[in-house]
């Protein structure tokens, strides 16, 4: 379980997040939606322990988030920077050595599902294939928390579809919680259990998606349009 308790994050004088309280329970795919600069990435980095809150506390299964929480968290960055001297296979192998919970079998499965060549040079990968590689690296870990920052951003529909399918296929919802940020809600709305909307660093709504549909007869996009007014 991920818990944010009164969390604020300030850069110089500007608040990126303000008094955020969240409780995310296991076994769910949760979407964090909002405009660019609303605080989505900041939230993910805070949970990943890559930045620290100015105020408040973040815990993952009771443990306070810090840099080495990487052992409990698989984080996919919105940047696609990897070590250019490795090829796909070497990158996977390197990750396998760094994370004890990394499953090479699973990585192989996802890699072949994504139709990535093991000996393809990273420098020569298309943006779509780099996006796919990130998915391989992130989902191959047997880890309680998966954080994905804009996994679909800037990718063509074919790639998006393969990524959404791989989420359904390779996430273990018995044990894992997945938090995805996106500003392309339509691509993922069918696979979300919950949706959280964030605006100017503040949470403006947190709902079970099917409940939202049943009670308000609204999809996420309509709800967001309403929430953002």
């Amino acid at each position, binding site marked *: 379980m991920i818990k944010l308790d009164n969390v604020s994050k300030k*850069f*110089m004088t500007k608040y990126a997040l303000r008094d955020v309280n969240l409780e995310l329970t296991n076994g769910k795919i949760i979407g964090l939606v909002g405009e660019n600069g609303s605080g989505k990435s900041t939230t993910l*980095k805070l949970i*990943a322990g*890559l*930045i*620290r809150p100015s105020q408040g506390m973040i815990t993952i299964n009771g443990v306070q988030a*810090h*840099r*080495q929480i*990487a*052992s409990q968290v698989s*984080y996919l*960055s919105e*940047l696609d*920077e*990897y*070590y250019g*001297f*490795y090829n796909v296979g070497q990158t996977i192998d*390197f990750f396998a*050595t*760094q*994370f*004890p919970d990394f499953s090479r079998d699973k990585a192989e499965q996802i890699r072949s599902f994504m139709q990535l060549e093991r000996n393809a040079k990273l420098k020569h990968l298309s943006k779509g294939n780099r996006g796919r590689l990130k998915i391989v690296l992130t989902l191959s870990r047997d880890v309680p928390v998966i954080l994905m920052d804009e996994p679909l951003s800037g990718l063509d529909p074919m790639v998006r579809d393969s990524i959404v399918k791989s989420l359904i296929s390779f996430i273990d919802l018995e044990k894992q919680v997945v938090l995805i940020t996106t500003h392309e809600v339509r691509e993922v709305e069918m696979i979300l259990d919950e949706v959280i909307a964030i605006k100017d660093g503040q949470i403006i709504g947190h709902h079970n998606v099917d409940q939202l549909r049943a009670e308000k007869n609204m999809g996420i996009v309509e709800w967001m349009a309403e929430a953002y007014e």
Partner: protein
Amino acid sequence: MSAWWHLTKKELRLGLPAFLLILITFAVILGVVSYIGYRAGFLWEAATIVSVLALGGHIFYLAYYLLYSLEKERKKLHLWLHNPQPGYALLLAKIAAGLITLIVSMLIIGTLLLISFNLAENFHQMEWSHSTQLAVFGILHIMMLSVNIAVYFIFFWMIFLLINRFTNGFFSFILTLIIFLISMSLYGWFMETTVYEALTMWGEINLLNILSGFEFNFSSDAFMAEFDTMPLYLGNYVFEASVTVLLFLAASWLLDRKVEV
């Protein structure tokens, strides 16, 4: 341990260009100077001097290597820092990779030095007793200084990363430089104090005993006088080593707790 070793292998691969650049630069300078020396009839003497200077320059090697490696990493900090290993392990992997290449680099240049020295007839007229001890003494000190300088560098690099969160690269560099200069002048002031003397001036080592018989035919008196006024203390080594360890721990702490992606 295995994870750390694999990380170190990655660091070796990441730092490879830095290592090669030094060897290439050395080869180019050696070529140019040797050619000039050859024209003047002192080919091997020239090569010897270039090699000695290059070896001496290795006191900055590790800092340079880490500059390259850490600067590469700065563009993908999330990749480097999203790792379950503690900060000191991440930094030690880089230092270990740097040390391995430092040794290889010194071996290559040292071998060239030995060859050219043996062929440099002009140097044979001088008496070189205890040259092995001198070499060991020199090499050890180059490596120790290299680590020492590298750790100072890492520490200030962490300061740079902290500042870099708030302002652009250039301004962060300037600020870090100012902080560096201020701390160095404070350190210089501290070295004048009696506290520093008490901390460092114990366990005098008589270099002349170690290098007894180490004599140059020319100006040997002046050289000896130089050694006399600059006595070596065990305390100095212990003190510098402690400062190095403390700075390293501080840098690791900063990396774990303060540096942000």
